[in-house]
């Protein structure tokens, strides 16, 4: 990653490398997902506290596993009817997870992203059980109170147990659709970070790094799934632009005005290779197509040299997989570059019913109106966009536009 490895980032990386695997193996051992997941969560909280002062131990996985098992024992002792699980936990020594075996986190991930759970719950549970974030960290990332987030997670886990949602790989006939759920959760996680972390947010956690890591985990575990490769390529490309996305004051810098020399060129080349690998399967999908669009932007030397016609064609293909209003809005931008702002504005205006509450709808309209010389209307649209976003970096940009 291009980001300097701060102490917190190193802590985060050490924890997420181990947490999901320990949840999965502890769950297998004690047979109770709630006990296993809570035990690991407590271990993560302990690790964050100890490791910050004492440093990261030589074998973080073993440290976490010992702590998690001790916590699981405590939790089981407090409950009755768990003698068998207690016995198994006492008898079996902590295991060395083989590096070459199947990734145990994958079934866990599919379970956490099960369509029977609300989307917000899938994201929160995945971050906790698979990536090893604490409830407090997740709450900060989603701008809700820790109590609200804790309740969301508890409810989701209760449903997993009560409705017996399998923490397992989906049956073959549901595989494609369930993989799409997993990739969508990962994508939403990244997006949340992409808009909410304005440069140095002062937080101890970069959700974008976590989402990118998760996309890598899925693509590695399922190397023959082109959409998994597509998502990894997409997130890699967006992450590669991260260093250029904010100015010194913390305001958002749009693609058009970014200093392209600050993009991570080796990451972009890596994403291009991922996309080539994905394309060889001849099974296009929405993540591959979005990645292809991002790759088009990444390969343009300047904004003016962008191949808008190619991008428009890719958007038309994307609409076949994802006809959502937001996709159509983005297509509207490309449409404007190829055929002019007047037609694009007409196209975008037709989305008003669906997108009136979405700040980027108004920001996009503002840009088109400005291009057409309709400055007053552009100002109104920008003001509306400003009233709809709570993101500080976007607010700074919009305020600058309004005062400029």
């Amino acid at each position, binding site marked *: 990653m291009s980001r300097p490895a701060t102490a917190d980032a190193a802590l985060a990386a050490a924890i997420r490398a181990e947490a999901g695997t320990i949840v999965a193996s502890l769950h297998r051992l004690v047979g109770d997902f709630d006990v296993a997941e809570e035990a690991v969560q407590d271990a993560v909280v302990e690790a964050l506290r100890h490791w910050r002062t004492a440093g990261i131990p030589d074998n973080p996985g073993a440290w976490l596993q010992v702590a998690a098992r001790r916590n699981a024992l405590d939790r089981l002792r407090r409950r009755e009817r768990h003698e068998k699980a207690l016995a198994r936990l006492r008898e079996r020594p902590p295991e060395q997870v083989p590096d070459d075996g199947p990734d145990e986190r994958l079934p866990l991930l599919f379970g956490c992203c099960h369509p029977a759970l609300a989307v917000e719950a899938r994201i929160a549970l995945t971050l906790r059980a698979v990536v090893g974030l604490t409830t407090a960290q997740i709450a900060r990332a989603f701008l809700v109170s820790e109590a609200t987030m804790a309740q969301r997670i508890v409810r989701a886990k209760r449903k997993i147990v*009560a*409705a017996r*949602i*399998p923490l*397992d790989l989906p*049956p073959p006939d549901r595989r494609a659709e369930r993989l799409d759920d997993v990739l969508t959760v990962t994508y939403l996680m990244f997006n949340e970070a992409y808009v909410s972390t304005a440069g140095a947010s002062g937080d101890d956690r970069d959700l974008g790094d976590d989402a990118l890591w998760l996309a890598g985990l899925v693509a590695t575990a399922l190397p023959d799934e082109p959409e998994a490769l597509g998502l990894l390529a997409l997130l890699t490309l967006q992450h590669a632009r991260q260093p250029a996305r904010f100015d010194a004051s913390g305001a958002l810098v749009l693609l058009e005005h970014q200093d392209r020399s600050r993009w991570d060129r080796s990451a972009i080349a890596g994403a291009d290779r991922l996309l080539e690998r994905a394309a060889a399967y001849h099974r296009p999908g929405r993540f591959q197509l979005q990645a292809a669009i991002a790759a088009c932007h990444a390969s343009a030397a300047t904004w003016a040299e962008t191949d808008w016609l190619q991008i428009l064609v890719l958007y038309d293909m994307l609409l076949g997989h994802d006809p959502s209003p937001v996709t159509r809005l983005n297509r509207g931008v490309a449409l404007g570059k190829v055929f002019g702002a007047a037609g694009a504005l007409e196209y975008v205006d037709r989305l008003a019913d669906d997108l009136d509450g979405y700040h980027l709808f108004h920001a996009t309209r503002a840009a088109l109106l400005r291009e057409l010389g309709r400055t007053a209307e552009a100002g109104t649209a920008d003001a509306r966009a400003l009233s709809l976003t709570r993101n500080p970096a976007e607010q700074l940009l919009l305020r600058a536009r309004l005062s400029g």
Partner: protein
Amino acid sequence: MKYVLMFCDTPERYGEVDEVTAKAVHEEVWAWFGEHDAAGRIADMGAHLQPVTTATTVRSGDGAPVVVDGPFSEAKEVVGGFTVIDVPDLDAALAMARTWPPLRLPGVSVEVRPVVDHGGDM
């Protein structure tokens, strides 16, 4: 693991279904029960309910329960029947629900609810 499948439909959309289709779906429903029963997945056939227009509700009132002439909610979608299934997990229950023949008609849904396990036979 036992789940109740609650079969719901929308009475105001009955008119959209022609007689031939309705009859065909009806027969498929019997085949559906036959197939899943033979596979040991039906714990209790449940019941097919009379139209919601025949429902009467007793609800809690001030002091004593009150009798109300109608269904318990004003929802457009109503429960038309239910069955109790016994399958390994939610994915198996959803797989069964997904093949419920009336789902190809408008306004139909199947609610899948786990049954509380009291430790004994239900």
